[in-house]
């Protein structure tokens, strides 16, 4: 599992490769946190290469969402597969996040 971070225009795009779970959630928190400190304000997390997410992973997304909003930024999620959609629906987190079907739509939505 790994996180790849790149810039696309003024958007920070984070690819989550593999699981987002208790064992690596702090890595994501830290990496995105570092970028926010450097001044990034638009963040897109792409789940097209993600396996499963546990409650710790969901917790990190919630905390990043709040932190980005507090700094006047915006967070978008893209490319959730059916299993991940189920997970967001079960936890009602689909109502908290702005979720796009594709990366392109997510980029346009900022």
């Amino acid at each position, binding site marked *: 599992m790994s996180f790849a971070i790149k810039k696309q225009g003024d958007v920070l795009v984070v690819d989550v490769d593999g699981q987002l779970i*208790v064992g690596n959630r702090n890595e994501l928190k830290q990496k995105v946190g570092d970028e926010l400190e450097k001044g990034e304000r638009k963040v897109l997390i792409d789940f097209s290469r993600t*396996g*499963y997410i546990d409650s710790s992973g969901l917790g990190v997304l*919630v905390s990043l969402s709040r932190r980005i909003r507090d700094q006047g930024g915006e967070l978008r999620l893209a490319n959730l597969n059916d299993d991940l959609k189920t997970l967001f629906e079960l*936890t*009602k987190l689909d109502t908290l996040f702005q979720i796009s079907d594709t990366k392109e739509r997510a980029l346009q939505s900022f």
Partner: protein
Amino acid sequence: MAPDAPAPAPADPVAASLRVALELEIPSDVRHIEAVVGLIARHCEQFGFPRKQTALNIPVALTEALSNAILRVNAAGDAPRVQVRADLTDERLVVEIVDEGAGFDLAGCLGDPTQPENLEREEGRGLFLMTSLMDRLERFSSHGNVVRMTLLRHD
């Protein structure tokens, strides 16, 4: 048995009667979670459990139970270990996660993270996901704190 027209083999009694039990023990360290989850999910796949169960229900619920066992009891120091037992048939998975902690009040700890006031909380979704993704969740004490989850195979 006529060699040129053998009688058809009867329906597969091997798969129908097979029961697989897995037992393992890991040090209380979250880095082992993925290996345990992968192992049990793979065995369920081999039993023909549907993809959604082997890719979502089983990995997520098992990760929750393991991380609770590891994170709650790790604080105790003293190199605690977590035991995992899985019992698999054609029809269901029963998996038990045993930690060395004193246990907890399952009903009392089960909150509802989907309530508006809880939605932005970072914690508190583990037991909820376990109950949502499994058919049955039990906790009892027997040589440790045992969390038992049962998932019926639904095709």
